[in-house]
C-alpha cells in the first residue's frame, strides 16, 4: 500500500518536473518507508515469509526476503538523495 503511494507520488514528481515533491515530503516518505521496512523484517510480518519454499532465484524465500528489503532500502535512499540535492 505504502509502496503504491510512494511510486504514485514519485511518478507524479517526475511528470511535473520534480517541482511538486518538496524536501519535507520526501523526508516524510523516507521516514514512513523505513518504518515499513522495520515492520517487514520482524515479527509478525516476517512469519509469512519464514518458509524456505518457494525458492527465489535459487535462494530460499526466508533469505530472499531480507535481500529484497536491502534492495528496496537502497532504492529509497537513492531517491531521497536525488531530491535532497536538488538546487544545491
Amino acid at each position, binding site marked *: 500500500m505504502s509502496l503504491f503511494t510512494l511510486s504514485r507520488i514519485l511518478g507524479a514528481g517526475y511528470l511535473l518536473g520534480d517541482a511538486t515533491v518538496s524536501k519535507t515530503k520526501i523526508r516524510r516518505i*523516507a521516514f514512513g518507508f*523505513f518504518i515499513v*521496512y*522495520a515492520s517487514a*523484517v*520482524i*515479527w*509478525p510480518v*516476517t*512469519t509469512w*515469509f*519464514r*518458509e*524456505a*519454499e518457494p*525458492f527465489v*532465484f*535459487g*535462494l*530460499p524465500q*526466508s*533469505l530472499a526476503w*531480507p*535481500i529484497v*528489503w*536491502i*534492495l528496496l*532500502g*537502497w532504492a529509497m*535512499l*537513492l531517491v*531521497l*538523495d536525488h531530491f*535532497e*540535492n536538488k538546487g544545491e
Partner: protein
Amino acid sequence: MDQWLVITAMIVAYLVLTLWVGLRAGRRASATVDGFVAGDRNFGFLVMYFVTGATVFSAFAFLGGPGWAYSRGAAAFYILAYGVLGMAPWYVIGPKAARIGRRFGQVTQAQFLTGRFQSRGLSVVIALISIAALIPYITVQMRGAGIVIEAVTDGRVPLWAGAAVAYGIVLVYVLVSGVSAVGWTNTMQGVFMIVIAWSLGLYLPYALYGGVGPMFEAIQSQRPELLELPGLTATGAPWSWAGYSSAILISAVGITMWPHLFMKAFTARDERIIRRTVVWFPTFQLFLVPVFLIGFAGVLFVDALPRPDFILPHLILNVDLPVIVIGLFCAGALSASMSTGDALIHATASVAVEDGLRPFVRLNEQQQRLMIRILIVVFGAVAYFFAVADGVSLVVLLLTSYGIIAQLAPPVVAALFWRRATTAGVIAGLLAGGTTTLLCFFWPAIKPISMHEGLYGLMVHVPVLVLVSWLTTAQDDAHVEAYIHPPATQ
C-alpha cells in the same frame, strides 16, 4: 614447495602491503589532534565508503557469519535485516553531527554530547561505556586473525604468534599515521574482502553442489529446519521470534552509535560525502550474502564442527582448493579482522584521552597525541591478553555490548532534535537504561519475554529521559539552537 609455505608467503606479502599503505597514508596528515583523530576532516567519498563498510564487516562477519549460517541457519539472516535499517537514520544524523563537530572542534561522541549536555560526569560515563564495549570487540578481532593464521599453517604459526604479528603491524601503522592509516588500509582491505567473499561464496556451492540453487535444495531435503526463520539457537533448539526480532531492532539502533563509527562523522570532508556513504552502504550489506553461502556450503559436508567459527578455514582446507585461493582467503579474513581492529583500537585510545582524561587534566596538543599513542599500545596489549586467553565468554560480552551501546542513541537523538531535553534527563536516562540492560542480562528471569536486554533498557531509558527533562529547567534557547539548527559553516 610445501603448501603452507606458499600460504605463509602470501600472508607475509599481504601484511607488508598493508603496512606500506598504512604508513604512506599519514604523510599528508597534520601533526595535530584533529589530524590524528579526525584526519583533518578531509576524508573523501571512496575512503569514507570503505571505512564505514569495512569497519562494520569485521572478523565476526567473515568468520562468524559462515559459522552462524552453518550452525544456526536462518538465524543468521537477522544480520542482513538490520544493516540498512540501522544506517538510514545516519543520513540525517551524520551530517548534522559533522556540522556541529566542525563548528565546536569536536572529535569524539562524548564531546559532541557534552557540548549540548554539559557535564564532566557524562563525559566519563560515555568514555567508560565506550571502552568497556570496545575492548571485547578488539579481542574478538585479534582472535579471528590468530585463528585464521593458525588454521592455514597447520598450527605451525600458533594463535598467539599470528595475532601478535598481524596486530603488531596494525599497531605500527595506527601509531604512525592515526586515523588516516585506518582510512586507507580499510579501503584496500575492503576491496580484498568483497572480491574474495564473492568469489568463494559462488565457487564453494558450485564446487560442492553444482550451484547455489541445488545447494539449497539439498539442504531443504535433508536439514529443512536450517532454512526456516527464525532459525536455531546455538544449542540447536528453535530460536524465538522475540529473540530474532529484538536482535534486529537493537542492532539497528546500536550500529551507528559505536564510537569508532560515530567518530568517523568528524573525519568526512563535507556533509555530502556522509550522505553518499549512507546511500551506497547497502552494496556493502549485500556482501554478507556470499558469506552466508559459504556457511551453508558446509552444512552437508562438514559434520558437527565443535567450534562453528572454524567452519570457513575448515572448509577451505578440506575442499582441495588451489593453494592460491587459500592464500587469498587468508588475506580476506585478515583484512576483515584488521580493518575493524585498527579502527577500534584507535577509537578506544582517542576516547579514553579526549573524554576520560582531558576534562580533568590540562593537556596540550602534543601531550594529547602522546597520550593517545601510549593508550593505543596499552589497550592493544589488554585486548591481546584476553585474545590469547580463552575467549568463549567474549562473544556473549560482545552481543551484550550492543545493548549498552544502543543506550547512546536516545541522548544523540535528543541532542539534535529535542529542545526540551536537559542534562539531568540525559544522565538519568543513560543510567536507568544501562542498569536495566545489565539487570536483564545477568538475571534473564526478570524478562517477561525473551527479547534482547538492550531493548528493555531502551524501554526504561526513553521515558526516564523525557520525564526527568520535563521536571528540570529547560536549557537556554541560544545554546539549544546551535544543536537543533546548526548553521552551515564554510
